[in-house]
């Protein structure tokens, strides 16, 4: 057994008190800061998350030309992420990472489904195609898909849509 050092009770208790107070003060500060950070984070979660995503270059609307291959494919034009063709919106990067590591983004953007329908597609891919469980991220993925790729009422047949520049004179020779 170690022999106890004889110390003055008053001196010891005074310094202990100061030390304890300092610890309490520091801890309180840390807790307060953490809470503040949490509050700030949860209030501005989406914008903070987005600030960590790559800043795509915004470019004016323009006609497609073959020369676009000299531009950054990661840019956004008219709200569309050019490389994938997907709508650039909250949770875009998450959805892009989750979907296009296995298949083309074209498979996402040509489909339309309700939130339930998209959830069923994810289930199907998990059951049969070896897709991972997204855990808590599935909600955000579904938020994105539901908001941007929900069905529109098209009826039994849609109008034939010919853009102005696509009308042409039929060559009758």
């Amino acid at each position, binding site marked *: 057994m170690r022999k106890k050092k004889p110390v003055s009770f008053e001196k010891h208790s005074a310094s202990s008190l100061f030390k304890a107070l300092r610890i309490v003060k520091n801890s309180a500060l840390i807790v307060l800061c953490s809470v503040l950070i949490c509050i700030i984070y949860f209030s501005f979660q989406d914008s903070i998350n987005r600030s960590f995503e790559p800043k795509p270059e915004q470019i004016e609307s323009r006609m*497609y030309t*073959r020369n*676009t*291959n*000299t531009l*950054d*494919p*990661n840019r956004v034009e008219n709200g569309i992420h050019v*490389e*994938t*063709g997907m709508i650039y919106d909250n949770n875009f990067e998450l959805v892009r990472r989750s979907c296009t590591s*296995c*298949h*083309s*983004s*074209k*498979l996402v953007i*040509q*489909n*339309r*489904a309700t939130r339930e*329908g998209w959830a069923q*597609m994810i289930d199907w891919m998990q059951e049969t*195609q*070896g897709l991972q469980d997204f855990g808590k991220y599935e909600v955000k993925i579904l938020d994105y898909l539901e908001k941007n790729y929900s*069905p529109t*009422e*098209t*009826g*039994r*047949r*849609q109008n*034939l849509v*010919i853009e102005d520049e*696509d*009308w*042409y*004179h*039929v060559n*009758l020779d």
Partner: protein
Amino acid sequence: MKNKTSKQDDPKTNRRLFLKKSALSSMAMILGTDIVFGHNLPIGMNIIGLEEVGASLPGKDGRMTILNDRPINAETPPYLLDDKITPGEMFFVRNNGVPPIEIDVNKWTLTIGGESAKKEIVFTLAELKSKFKQYTYQLTLECGGNGRKEFNPPAKGNQWGLGAVGCAEWTGVRLRDVLEEAGVKSDAVYIGYYGADTHLSGDPNKDPISRGVPINKAMEEESMIAWAMNGEDIPLLNGHPLRLLFGGWPASCSGKWLNKIVIRNKVHDGVKMLGQAYRIPCDAVEPGTKVADEDMCIIESMPVKSLITFPKTGGMISLNEELPIRGHAWAGDNIVSKVEYSIDFGATWNSCKLSNPVNRHAWQHFDVTISFPKVGYYEVWAKATDNNGISQPMILPGWNPKGYLNNACHRIAIKVNK
């Protein structure tokens, strides 16, 4: 591999070349093989990366619409299907997995087996070509999901428009002759195929697709095992070096990169034969209905359909001009008996001239010259009728959960100016 990871010293001057190279190598990754035609690609029709507009698939025309690049799925705009026999570079692509790597035609074999084969037998390509009588047929292949894009509520999957169809001239041997060489037991009810393509996940134990047809369809004269399309090797994306062909049935029955056929004593239970794949409700349902697997029936013959391949939609003519139109019509196991057109949204119909099929399952050709009564916007609609008197509907036919068999009339937009 993406374009931005350039290691070139001078990215500006080398960029075009690099983009082409990297696009080709990402293409190679998708295909799992080097691109045979890659070096032939002229700089002008660069494939930039398949996500870009104007991208092109190996052996395919750059104007095809690529719906998906993993797996590769591409359709042909109707105006590019104007040829009577669809050229290889215009033939649509519906892949379920990754095409095979390094095809050695000298080592390629086809095995015939299954519980209803009297013996298992293996043929090399050379043996197939020398042992059996060769036949050439024009056969129409159409994806079961052609036209899915119009379904409402939408059906998931590739959103095919109009052009997942083609009719090429195929050369090979009769499936019947080859099956009989192995011996078909009296209890045979179905055949199933296996191909050398691999599952997208890379899992070697999973088949991307393994479908088939009832034995009576397999034994028909025009059911064949082919190695040539239009007198040349079948394009890689369409099944080189060997594929099955069942004209008039969903093209998924016609297995590509064929290396095994099984004769079954029950309905083949390979991948995409079960569940809801290539099935429609046995009894018609209200749009949007969830249908249980056991109430879904396998699609067999495809319905009557037609396509206007000239002119391209969006054409303008003058009131003093007449407009020639032409196209093709087909009817699954049946024959098309008439094709009509309407320029007044189906209120009145007039006949087109229609050719007979070259052989069973070949598409037929129609043409007519139209004069318009006054200036304005028109839609030219085409409607085929088969030999049972069944016509194409003018609106989306029976809704089904997976979006198959849309054979609604093809419509093109025409403006008649002063």
